[in-house]
């Protein structure tokens, strides 16, 4: 249950019920909730003051009940590009995910369906993943995007597309290998193939996975 370090979390969610629930859940998993607020303005203020390890925010919040949470996250990322942000959305829409992924340097981003909170282990894993600079996109978004099959992804083989989809969910090569029941070396080969086909030069080491996921999301 306690995979990874204890995190200092800033939480924004306008429903009191859910805010309390999430706070309890995070505390149970050994994290510290340094701020639990109900609107985007308060979130921005709290994050500036308390400097948390990760921000967890709802998309729709007062006062306008539109995409305030998302905009607060984008704003915070403009101030602190490496600030990990996990956005919980009422439903999947790659438009929101793209806005978020465009902010900062594209790392340390999570975009999950609210339903995912109920799958406690998945949620907590995603949280640690994002806090460590990973990129986690809801499998539902990934599934929708896979239906489109358009450039530049058309060059990828079906297997490579599967691997890329799992990368977008924030999984490591080892995890991908387990999911597809292949060897980790085979996954490494596929990742290499994907990076080559998406024209991501080998010079740029660590961010290439994220860039590949971004290309996938924007396709």
């Amino acid at each position, binding site marked *: *249950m306690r995979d990874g370090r204890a995190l200092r979390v800033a939480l924004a969610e*306008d*429903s009191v*019920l*859910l805010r309390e*629930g*999430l706070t*309890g*859940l995070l505390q*149970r998993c050994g994290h510290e909730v340094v701020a639990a607020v109900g609107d985007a303005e308060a979130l921005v203020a709290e994050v500036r003051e308390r400097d948390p390890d990760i921000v967890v925010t709802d*998309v*729709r919040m007062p006062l306008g*009940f*539109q*995409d305030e949470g998302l*905009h607060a996250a*984008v704003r915070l990322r403009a101030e602190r590009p490496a600030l990990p942000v996990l956005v919980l959305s*009422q*439903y999947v*829409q*790659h*438009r*929101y995910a793209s*806005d978020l992924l*465009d902010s900062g340097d594209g790392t340390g981003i999570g975009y999950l*369906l*609210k*339903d995912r*909170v*109920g*799958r*406690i*282990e998945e949620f907590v894993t995603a949280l640690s993943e994002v806090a460590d600079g990973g990129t986690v996109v809801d499998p539902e978004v990934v599934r*929708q*995007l896979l*239906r*489109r*099959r358009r450039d530049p992804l058309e060059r990828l083989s079906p297997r490579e597309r599967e691997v890329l989809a799992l990368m977008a969910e924030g999984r490591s090569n080892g995890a991908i290998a387990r999911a597809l029941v292949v060897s980790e070396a085979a996954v490494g080969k596929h990742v290499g193939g994907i990076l080559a086909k998406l024209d991501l030069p080998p010079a740029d080491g660590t961010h290439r996975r994220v860039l590949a996921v971004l290309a996938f999301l924007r396709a």
Partner: protein
Amino acid sequence: MSRPGYALSPWPWRSAGYLLTGALTGAVLLVGLVVSAVAGGVLALALVGLPLLLGTALAGLPVARLERARLRLVDGDPAPDPHLPPAAPGLRAWLITRLRERATWRELGHAVLFAALLWPVDALALTAGLLLPAAVTATPLLMATVGDGREAKVLKLWTVTSWPAAAAAAVLGVALLAVGAYLLGVAAGARAGLTRLLIAPREAGLHAVVTELTRSRVRLVDAFEAERRRIERDLHDGAQQRLVALTMTLGLARLDAPPGPLADQLARAHDEAGRALEELRELIHGIHPQVLADYGLAAAVADAADRSAVPVDVDLDLTGRLPGSVEAAAYFVVCEALANVARHSGASRARVGGGHRDGRLLLEIGDDGRGGARAGAGSGLTGLADRVSVLDGRLTLSSPVGGPTLLRVEIPCAPCLPCETAEHCA
């Protein structure tokens, strides 16, 4: 007027009042028009007279307004104002609107006719119908006062010198008054009819009714749209949050439960709650997708295409936002069309194209299926066609047997505005 007792009703007096105020107004108007036109014409050489001339040209407006008010004296039907409200606040917009309206110039014509011709007619009718009979009736009174009981002149035409003759004149005067009452009624009626024809035509009223009907239809659609959003918000803020909290609690309980039948039941409940949440999410999305409100039509159509079971190519040329009702109508047309493609067409590929051109939103939804679709056959397109027609738009369907099917939607609307907030259309 054909009713018995007309002469004793208030109507002759109302007619007399109408004619009297008409004569007075007309006389004042004649003086005003002549003075302002002459002064304006002379001063126009030095440019200062131009506003005065403009004012003269618009003189028909207040006159017509007064005339419409006066009409109420003799005409039970309200006289509608034929003018449209100006497009924007401010004197300039008001002037432009008024100067472009045909009604303004018709009212100026009426004012000139009124000043030149109508008011003397009013005065004449009033004199013949009321003043002369009254003077004849007053003969005995005149004889008693001015004539010292010896003589009185009736209408300066002939002289009576005896009380019986004076009494006879009075009787004649009363009879003339009764005749005059009808004369006044006829004159006022004709005058009011002419006025109404010139400044409050019946078809203007009819036009106003049609405009009002259209507006109320648009209001109804807007209210419907607002209600959709309210339901969406209620579900989202209420039921959905509770279900998320429930699945979270069940998820935590599962972690704590020792393996056994209890854990199995918790797992079932957890999955069930998860499925309920999924269904609720789809339902909420169908009511009013948030992405439509946040990012507009292009993003919402892309989202609908993502969800479609048949692969969809989207080629929409929209740079900004459109009016909310247009976006909503267009979005639901696309959704319904894509649902039909998936359900009935047997197509392997669909496309959504179009954009904003020449003040119209144009959308084309096509597929490579077997065709033969009809708007009426329970496809849901009839309702959408109604909705589009409220916005003055058109929905056309071409679907020969064997395909391809092409659905076109055209909705006139203001051009795409650049987004208000830059991050919305990055």
